C-alpha cells in the first residue's frame, strides 16, 4: 500500500516537474520568439530626408539579411522607427517613446549631426550604447565612452572633411598660395570651416575670402562674384545640397576658375544632383565616403549589398545608386550584430566595452573605433569628377567618373590640375 502510494507520488511529482519543465520550455520558446527591437528616429521628411530614407532602406536590408540567418541570439530583429522630420526638437520625444513605450533593446541615431546632438545627452543620462549615423564632431565636448560614430572622420573630425582637399592642393605644382573659404550658417559647414581654417594656418596659406551665408540663400551669384574678385588659388566650399547646386551653377555662370575647387560640398554625392549637374561637376575635388572605384568595390560584401539596395531603391523612392550613406548604414547594423553576438546579450556597458576594443568586418571595410568613438584612423575620401558627359545615370554606375585621389591606399587615379584643365 505504501509502495503503491509512493509510486503514485513519484508519478505525480514527475508529471508536475515535467509539466513545469514543459511550461518553462514553452516560456523559453516564447521568449526566444520575442524580437530584439532596435529603435531610432530618422529623417524621412524635411531637409535631410534625401539621406535619411536611403539610410533606413539599408538598415531594413540588414535586418532582412540577419533574420534570414536566424536573427540575433536566436531572436528575430525588429526595427522600430519614427520620422524625426529633420527636426532636432522631435528627438527627445521620439527616444523617450522608444525607450519607455516601445521598450526597444538597442538604439541607434538617425542621420546627421544636428539630429545626433540632442540624442547624445539622452544616451549619456541613460547609459546607452549609441552608434551615430554621420555626425561630425558630436562627441568632442562630451567625450562619452558609449558613443561610436560610423562616419570615417577619424580622431580629428573637424579637419576630416578638409584635410584630404588641402593635402592634395599643397602637393600640386605650382603650389597654390591663396585660399577662399565659404560655407552655410549651419552646424556641419561651420565645423568644416573651423577645420579648414586650422589647416590653412598650418599650411601657411593666405586667406583672401572667409565668409558664411544663410542656408535659405536663393542667389549665389553675388557670393561667387565676390570670391572671384579676390582671385584665389583654392576655393573651399562647405555647403548643403541646395547651396552646393547654387554655388556650382553660379561658379560656371561667372566663370570662377581657381586652381582647385570643392572640398566639403554635400549633395554632389547624391545621384539626383549628379545627374542634374552633369558636366558641371568636372574638375570639382570633393569629399566623399564611397565611390564605385575598383579600390572600394573590392571590399567583401559590398557588391552584394549594393545589388540588393539598387534593386529595392526605386520602389522605395530613394537614391537609386546608394554610393554615399547606405553602405555605412548597413555597417551600423553589422557592428551591432557582431557586438551582440560576441557579448551574448544586450548589456549596454558590455556592448560599449566590446565595441571599443574590437575591429569589425563590415561592407565598408574594417572598422575600428578610437578616441571619442570616432574611427581610430580617418578615411574620408577626396574624389574628383572627371570626363562626365551629359546627364545619364549609367555613367555613374561604374568607375572612372568619381576618381578617388585620397587617401593614397584607396587611390584609383590622378588629379586633373588646375581646375580649368578638367573643364576642357
Amino acid at each position: 500500500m505504501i509502495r503503491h502510494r509512493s509510486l503514485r507520488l513519484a508519478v505525480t511529482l514527475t508529471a508536475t516537474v515535467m509539466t513545469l519543465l514543459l511550461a518553462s520550455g514553452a516560456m523559453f520558446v516564447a521568449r526566444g520568439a520575442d524580437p530584439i527591437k532596435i529603435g531610432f528616429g530618422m529623417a524621412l521628411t524635411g531637409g535631410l530626408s534625401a539621406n535619411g530614407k536611403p539610410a533606413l532602406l539599408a538598415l531594413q536590408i540588414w535586418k532582412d539579411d540577419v533574420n534570414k540567418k536566424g536573427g540575433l541570439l536566436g531572436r528575430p530583429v525588429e526595427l522600430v522607427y519614427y520620422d524625426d522630420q529633420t527636426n532636432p526638437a522631435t528627438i527627445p520625444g521620439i527616444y523617450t517613446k522608444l525607450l519607455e513605450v516601445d521598450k526597444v533593446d538597442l538604439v541607434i541615431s538617425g542621420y546627421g549631426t544636428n539630429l545626433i546632438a540632442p540624442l547624445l545627452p539622452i544616451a549619456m543620462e541613460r547609459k546607452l550604447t549609441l552608434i551615430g549615423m554621420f555626425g561630425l564632431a558630436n562627441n568632442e565636448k562630451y567625450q562619452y565612452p558609449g558613443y561610436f560614430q560610423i562616419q570615417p572622420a577619424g580622431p580629428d573630425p573637424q579637419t576630416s572633411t578638409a584635410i584630404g582637399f588641402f593635402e592634395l592642393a599643397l602637393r600640386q605644382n605650382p603650389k597654390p598660395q591663396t585660399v577662399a573659404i565659404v560655407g552655410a550658417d549651419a552646424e556641419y559647414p561651420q565645423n568644416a570651416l573651423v577645420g579648414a581654417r586650422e589647416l590653412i594656418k598650418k599650411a601657411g596659406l593666405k586667406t583672401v575670402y572667409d565668409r558664411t551665408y544663410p542656408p535659405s540663400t536663393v542667389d549665389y551669384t553675388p557670393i561667387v562674384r565676390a570670391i572671384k574678385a579676390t582671385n584665389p588659388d583654392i576655393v573651399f566650399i562647405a555647403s548643403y545640397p541646395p547651396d552646393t547646386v547654387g554655388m556650382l551653377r553660379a561658379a560656371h555662370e561667372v566663370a570662377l576658375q581657381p586652381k582647385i575647387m570643392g572640398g566639403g560640398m554635400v549633395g554632389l554625392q547624391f545621384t539626383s544632383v549628379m545627374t542634374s549637374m552633369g558636366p558641371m561637376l568636372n574638375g570639382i575635388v570633393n569629399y566623399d565616403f564611397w565611390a564605385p572605384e575598383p579600390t572600394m568595390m573590392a571590399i567583401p560584401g559590398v557588391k552584394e549589398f549594393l545589388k540588393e539596395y539598387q534593386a529595392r531603391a526605386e520602389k522605395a523612392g530613394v537614391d537609386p545608386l546608394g554610393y554615399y550613406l547606405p553602405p555605412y548604414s548597413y555597417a551600423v547594423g553589422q557592428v551591432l550584430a557582431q557586438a551582440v553576438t560576441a557579448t551574448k546579450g544586450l548589456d549596454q556597458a558590455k556592448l560599449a566595452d566590446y565595441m571599443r576594443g574590437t575591429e569589425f568586418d563590415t561592407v565598408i571595410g574594417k572598422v575600428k573605433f578610437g578616441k571619442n568613438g570616432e574611427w581610430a584612423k580617418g578615411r574620408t575620401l577626396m574624389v574628383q569628377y572627371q570626363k562626365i558627359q551629359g546627364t545619364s545615370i549609367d555613367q555613374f554606375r561604374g568607375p572612372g567618373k568619381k576618381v578617388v585621389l585620397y587617401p593614397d591606399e584607396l587611390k584609383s587615379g590622378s588629379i586633373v590640375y588646375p581646375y580649368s584643365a578638367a573643364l576642357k
Partner: protein
Amino acid sequence: MFSWDLLANAVVAGLLLGGFYAAVSLGVGLIFGLLDIANIAQPAFVILGAYAAYVMNNSFGFDPILTGLLFTPVFYLLGAAVYRVYYSSFERRGEESLRGLVFFFGILFIMEVSLSMTFGVDYRLVQTAYTSRSIEFGGVGIAFRYLVPCVVGVAMTLALHLFLARTFYGRAIMAVSQDRLALRLMGANPVQIKTIAFGVGIAAASLAGALLISIAPVIPSTDRDYIGRMFAITVLGGMGSIGGTLVAAVVLGVAESLMSTFFGPSWSLAVSFGILLLALAVRPAGLFGR
C-alpha cells in the same frame, strides 16, 4: 574689395532676384494682401508647381515655364476648391482667424507629405537650354537662370495689375477687398468673387513654381524657406498693392545682393527684414499701402 564692377553686378543680380521674388509673392499679395486670408500654404502650392514642371520636363521634355502656363487652369480649379472648403468650414461661420490659419497649415503639411510620398525626398531640378547660359554687357554678367524668371515675374505682375484694373472681375476683387457689403448690395456675390481671386492666386503659384525649379533644386520641404520672404514682401509692398509687391521684391532682392557682395552674405536676410521693420515704422501700411 569695392569696385564699380562688383557694385553694378550686385545691383543687376538684385534686380533679377527681385523679379523672381515678385513672381513667387504675387499669390500671397492677392490672397493675403487683398482678400485678407492668411494662406500659409501658398509656398506649398509653389512647390507643387515646381514638381509639375519637373515631371513634365523629365517625362516629356517640356520647358518648365510652358508647363507652368499649361497648369494654371488646374491650379486655378484647385485654388477655387480650397477656398470653397475654407469658406464653408470657417469663413461662413466667422471662425476664419485662428482656425483658418490652422486649416492652411494643415494643407501645407498634407501637401508636403504627399509630395514626399509620391516623389521621394531627392532634390529635383530641371535643366533647360537657357539655364546654364549667361551674357555680359560691359562687365555686367547676366545669368539666364535669373533673367528669364525676372522677365516672367514682371510680366505676371503686369498681367495681374491689368486684370485687377481693367476687367470686371478684377474690379470686383478690388471691391470685395474694400467693402464686401457694398458689393453684395450691388448684386455681386462676394463668395464667387473671392473664389475667383483665390483661384487666380493659386494659379500664379503654378508659374512661380516652374520658375523656382529653374533656379534651384527643390525638395517637398523647400516651401519653408519662402514663407517668411513671401509675406514680408507683401507687407512691405503694402497690403493689396500688386505694383508694391514688385517694388518690395526688388528692394529685398537688391538689399540681399549688395549685402552678399560687400558685407558678408550672413547679413543679407537680417538686413532685408531690417528694411521691412524700418519701412513699417515709417509707413505702417507698407510702401504703397492705403
